[in-house]
């Protein structure tokens, strides 16, 4: 028997396009990941995390933000 650990993948939308962020480190908690990528994508610091949703053998987490929809 072979046991595969589910890969985590983090999705984040910019201008309507999904950006796939790979798992930086298996030992990171979800909020660690959020902080880690927050440096690159400041909008993430305020995001809500939904998931995991299991699609194609990977656990997809979604960063959802309502920023930038005003007006």
């Amino acid at each position: 028997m072979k046991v595969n650990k589910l890969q985590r993948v983090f999705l984040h939308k910019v201008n309507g396009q999904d950006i796939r962020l790979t798992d930086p480190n298996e030992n990171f908690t979800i909020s660690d990941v959020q902080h880690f990528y927050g440096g690159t994508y400041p909008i993430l610091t305020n995001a809500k995390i939904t998931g995991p949703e299991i699609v194609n053998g990977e656990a997809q987490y979604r960063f959802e933000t309502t920023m930038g929809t005003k007006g």
Partner: protein
Amino acid sequence: MKTNFFEQISTFAFEGNMLLNIHNDNKGQLTVSVVLRNGEISATAGNTLPPMTIGGTATELDEAFFTELTTPVKQTIGLIHNLETYQKELDKAKNKNPQNIKKAKAAIEIDEDNDSDEPDDLFARQADDKQAKAEKKRLYDEAMEKAKELAKQMKYTEALAQLPDPAEYPEQAEVLNKKRREIQTSKETYDKLTQQFND
């Protein structure tokens, strides 16, 4: 203490920003993400490049960080360059082609008002161009033929979709509008009948 970290980075010869994010956990494992950004690019594709992540102990990273990174960074720079050139060319083409501007203008007017009574001068230039006109006529005839055929087969929705846009053919607008109404009436009758039949 002297390091050559920045010298190494400068060998990448990139333009714009390199965002480095370094995370250290209590076991001495470092996780680093690297992403290149160029503010010049307004194409969304340029900003959706995901970061590269590299993990390892400090010693491992000291040894392998730059060798690992050289290829992906070079590829990324190439891609960014391509995007930049592409975008410039795209802008140039947009500005050069008056037909595009006219089309865009016409499209806006049509959105507001579907009666297609916009002034003829929008199409004056196209009228000069015999070849374009002939081609347009051919397309028009083809589309009309298809629409008629589809209407005969009682595929009214498809027929409506096939019908040329009156906005593109101002001269035939009246014919087109009439045809559209015709098909629509047939469609309604057909829908009603199907409804009754299903009941």
